[in-house]
């Protein structure tokens, strides 16, 4: 039911013709728009890193102690899983560009699978932490009771659950839009010659994994060294 979009021609005073860019079929506009949207994500997570850095400076030792208690094996595995998912996403886009729609779909499925693995590991981690009595609203993270952690640790875990939670939310959104992308590919709306949606979703996924690349060291690695005789792991 859609017309073939034919760009208009503007004529200057010398009679020279200039093609008019319409809002229809504007690939670069679509890319630009999505890049701008990515800026907003950067500003949002950037503000949280600002908060984190501020409290890290204020409560240095508490942050290191709290970080030492996180499970670096699971966190590290998740980092690798997410890096691999970025690879599969990128390969999918390359296959789409090369005209291999079937391969592209396979790669998107692989990305979805890795994203689910990431969420699964995340769930195991949070579960273990809840088991240790560390979760939002539990007594350890509330002030003024015998189980209360020191100020800095309360803040560390408050930010930890907020930021990894918000990141996890982005993963879930990502899975949703990848399934939508698969439907669009099946419907023939995303094709090798018209794959702006695929491009933008790949861009989104890159940003999601990039944010994790900063989240991981800031929460998991700062307490990894043997600082002040702090015990490792759980």
């Amino acid at each position, binding site marked *: 039911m859609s017309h073939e979009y034919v760009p208009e021609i503007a004529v*200057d005073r010398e009679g020279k013709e200039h093609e008019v860019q*319409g*809002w229809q079929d504007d690939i670069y*506009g679509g890319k*630009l728009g999505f890049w*701008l949207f990515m800026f907003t994500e950067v500003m*949002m997570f950037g503000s949280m890193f600002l908060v984190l850095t501020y409290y890290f400076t204020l409560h240095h030792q508490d942050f290191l102690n709290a970080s030492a208690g996180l499970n670096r094996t699971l966190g590290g595995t998740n980092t690798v899983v997410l890096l691999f998912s970025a690879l599969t996403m990128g390969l999918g886009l390359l296959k789409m560009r090369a005209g291999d729609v079937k391969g592209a779909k396979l790669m998107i499925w692989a990305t979805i699978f890795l994203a689910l693995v990431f969420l699964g590991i995340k769930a195991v981690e949070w579960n273990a932490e809840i088991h240790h009595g560390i979760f939002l609203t539990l007594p350890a993270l509330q002030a003024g009771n015998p189980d209360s952690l020191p100020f800095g640790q309360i*803040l560390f875990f408050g930010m930890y659950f*907020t930021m990894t939670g918000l990141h996890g939310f982005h993963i879930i959104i990502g899975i949703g839009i990848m399934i939508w992308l698969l439907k669009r590919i099946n419907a023939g709306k995303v094709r090798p010659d018209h794959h702006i949606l695929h491009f933008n979703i790949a861009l989104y996924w890159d940003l999601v994994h990039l944010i994790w690349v900063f989240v991981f060291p800031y929460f998991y690695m700062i307490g990894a060294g043997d600082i002040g005789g702090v015990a490792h792991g759980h």
Partner: protein
Amino acid sequence: MSKTYFDETHCAIGHPKSTFWQWMLTIDHKRIGIMYAAVMFTFFFVAVLTALAMRFELYAPGAQYMDGDTFNQAFTLHGVIMVFLFIIPGIPAVFGNIVMPLMIGAKDVSFPRLNWFTFWLYIVGCLVALASLFNFNIQEGELLFNFADTGWTFYAPYSLNTGTNVITTLVAAFILGMASILTGLNFLVTIHRLRAPGMDFFKMPLFVWGIYATAWIQLLATPVVGITLILAMMEKFFGIGIFDPSKGGDPVLFQHLFWIYSHPAVYLMILPAFGIMSEIIPTFSRREVFGYRTIALSSASIAGIGYIVWGHHLFTSGMSDIAKTIFSFLTFFVAIPTGVKFYDWVATMYKGKIVLATPMLWALGTIVTFAIGGLTGVTIAMVGGDIHLQDTYYSVAHFHYAILGGVVFLLFAGLHYWFPLVTGKMYNETVAKLAFWMNFVGINLLWFPMFIAGYLGMPRRYFDYLPEFEIYHEVSFWGAIMLVSGLFIMFYNLIQGWRKGEAVGVNPWHATTLEWHMPTSPPPLENHTKVPYVDFNPYEYHHGEPVVKFDENMKRID
């Protein structure tokens, strides 16, 4: 092809037959702009009447019509509506939508469906804000008035402890923020991609420059307040401790994060307003604008400088002296590009053929009121002065002179300027001028006494005061009555003009920019008949007449 272009593309979903659904689902930028205006001005009047109720209470010392708690909710309601529902979407949502694509010769914005979605996101935000007014008690069938009482700034820790509906209000502000981001994103891509061939950045009308600078602020600053509101919600739901001193958190951090957005937000309000001024002044002086490039670039530099001055809101909240000094110093810098603009506008009028039509009157009035608002801003940007004047009526008067006397006055100027473009008709000039003078005298009567009261120590946000301040509140009250009457007359006149005004041609003001070269008035769907090739400057006048003329196919014939 049998289907018209309208059927194919000008509704977001389907091809409804009824006019009502065609409007609700429209992706046409002009219709969306008109709908924004309708909703925004409705809320504007709610907030105006709330403010008037507060003025009634303040006419005499002591409690007359409302108690302290209600007063706290009233000024919060006034602030939240005016800031988040009215002035932040403000000029970009109305004139950015209606006029900007016409000015650059585009058929629509870059993402028309996103524009439609954004409008409805804004409506959802408005509804959530309305819902936060009340507590619904289903069992007892009660409806309690329980709006947030924190002021529109939601400062922690009070906002985290109060029992009023702060969370709902935060959600509303967050949704409205998202709408603002998406508007900015859409306009940025539109301005980058859809300018008519030949129109480079320095051939764009200055209003488009204003919208462009604003869009960057919308895009880059709003996420910061978004995450701040999310952190405040997390704090209220889960007690993560970020802003809670009892867990080692720092409430001042909330103020920092809040103002990192909310200070650029005032430039987000004023920059498109300056853009309107830059359209009106050359048109009604029949003269090319003086210093086009300096006006354009000063918009960009105000947007840039606006990011690094937020600390001046925290001079008394606990900040190191060196930080205060730096923030104070940086704040003065904003006055430079603003001053450049003002001198450019005055220089444009010099030796021009000035036509004192209503839009020009509003613009000239704004030069007075905004100068007062802007210069008093410099006085409270000084650390020493601010210690004395902050949280008094002085800063209230400064803010309202700058925002009402600057942004809203210019919004009204734009309303009168583009009224014949949008409706194809003309309002009654005499009544419009009367309304202007009532507003102009009203705003000065209303707020100038507050400078004196504030200087003498009248604190803001109090519902009671010492007897020696009574005279200032009385004068303010009569100013408010005058202003509100002026507003009602103005809107009545505009509505009457729309209903039965005299039809005017496509270019009643002898303006030069592209939106005045439409085939019909009001403009048709899909805008210009043909996209023109732009090899001229936006404001070319010769002996008081526009230079550039087009034939019906948008080919130049001069």
